[in-house]
């Protein structure tokens, strides 16, 4: 019944962004994941929209503590669209908002995870790690600069989403797919490059057949340099495809196999 007259200001956006950037996942738990975080980021704004101690506010607070989980790089896009609706429709928009949150958290989680949790750390992390292993910390600082750029992007998207509203979902989808596609291409390319540089292990096995000693590593190098690292990665990739295999198990299997092969004198650093 109460249609709010409150309009969000620049200050409100700043407050939401601050809360999102510094605290969003503090309350993460198995039961409702980012539920309480979602409420916390917009609580002051909800109080302004619905007014303190009204039954509407209580109802809407309960709505926003429900299960929610998405990429913490895209959460404020959903927040922005949500607030645009609540500001216009008040408590009447409750159903729309719940549906919107449930419908968008999945897709945004997928895109956000693949770009911000997998690709950027891969590319910059690999650069930083590569330099670090050679004793040079510069790559770490390049990565920090890149993350600052990401933070600016995260800061800007809230107001953008608030202004565009619902229509944003459809317009963005196409561009994001093309971008994700290009980004995954770069990721795959970089993994190829990393396999060729970062796994420093070679065959030390040199069987003697009659008078001839077979230098395994040299023979392989003549076919293609770095064949052993490529084979190892291929093997682990295949192993990860098996049922009941987790990355942690895979790490330990590799550990044990390497120690065994090294003890037998097959491979060395």
């Amino acid at each position, binding site marked *: 019944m109460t249609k709010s007259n409150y309009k969000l200001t620049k200050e409100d956006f700043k407050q939401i962004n601050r809360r999102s950037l510094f605290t969003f996942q*503090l309350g993460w738990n198995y039961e409702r994941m980012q539920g309480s975080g979602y409420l916390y980021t917009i609580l002051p704004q909800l109080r302004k929209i619905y007014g303190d101690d009204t039954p509407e506010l*209580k109802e809407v607070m309960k709505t926003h503590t429900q299960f929610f989980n998405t990429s913490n790089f895209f959460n404020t896009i959903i927040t922005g669209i949500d607030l645009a609706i609540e500001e216009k429709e008040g408590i009447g928009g409750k159903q729309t908002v719940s549906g919107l949150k449930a419908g968008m958290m999945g897709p945004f989680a997928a895109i956000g995870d693949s770009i911000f949790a997998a690709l950027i750390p891969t*590319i910059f992390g690999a650069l930083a790690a590569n330099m670090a292993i050679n004793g040079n910390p510069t790559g770490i600082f390049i990565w920090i600069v890149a993350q600052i750029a990401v933070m600016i992007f995260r800061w800007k998207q809230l107001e953008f989403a608030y202004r565009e509203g619902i229509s944003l979902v459809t317009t963005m989808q*196409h561009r994001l797919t093309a971008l994700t596609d290009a980004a995954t291409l770069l990721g*795959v390319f970089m993994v190829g490059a990393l396999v060729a540089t970062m796994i420093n292990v070679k065959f030390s096995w040199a069987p003697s057949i009659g008078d001839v000693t077979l230098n395994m590593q040299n023979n392989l190098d003549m076919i293609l340099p770095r064949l052993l690292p490529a084979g190892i990665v291929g093997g*682990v990739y295949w192993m990860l495809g098996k049922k009941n295999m987790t990355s942690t198990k895979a790490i330990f299997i590799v550990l044990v196999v390497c120690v065994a092969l090294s003890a037998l004198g097959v491979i060395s650093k």
Partner: protein
Amino acid sequence: MDILWWQILLLTLYAGYQILDELQIYSSLSAPVFAGLFAGLVMGDLKAGLIIGGSMQLTVLGVGTFGGASKIDANSGTILATAFSVALGMNPEQAIAAIAVPVASLMIQLDILARFANTFFAHRIDKLVDEMNYKGIERNFLMGALPWSLSRMIPVFLALAFGGGLVEKVVAVLNGDLKWLGDGLSVAGAVLPAVGFAILLRYLPVKKHFPYLILGFTLTALLGTVFTNMQLLGTGVASVVKDFSGIFNALPMLAIALIGFALAAISYKNGQMIPNAPAPKKDDASNDSDEGEIEDDEI
């Protein structure tokens, strides 16, 4: 050399900070490679820290927190491995396999514990919503930081303060009676990044982009060999010719990344030229149903 009290303090504080950074602002100060830089600086051996941090970074390259699954805690592993490696004079690569990896995977249990503990605060918030206690809601939400931080700080502190003796004995054995095991662990430390790469490939659409995987690998393998041999040659010549002044550096990875970036940009432009191509829809489906995807990273 012992680990001094202020070193323990700084490393413990960082252990508590890094998880909050990773959950929220994600400034890359929570990356294993930075943990290595920080621990290396605190312990007074930057190089050891960078080697351990860099290797752990590569090992967990593909292990993001997808959908709230716990991942191995490479940061705590890096902190402890660096501290002990420097303090006890352990070979960094051995420290990766002998300390960093086991510690990192044990810490998964504590991550799970922290996530459970936070359920308690979520229920308090439910009650406070009923009472319309706004300050209480905010306070109880922010207290969620405690389980997160403490789940890292307590084990790191205990290990740094009391684990030294045990690790010292292990190091002595690895360099003495069990030399084969010590050497094996060093080799394992060098191979572990392979797991990181393989996990990453599981998450990326390899089948779709496989030509680029081959391209990236072959290009780098060939250039890498050329650069390494040049360096060897340079060192060899320098030792024979007195006033030889040529300096050869290793293959710059940034250059390789730029080639990859150019390829990605070309593909993006091509994708933009055909608007409303039916492709996107199909990709989504095939990505999701890719057989053998890792469902979660818990033990």
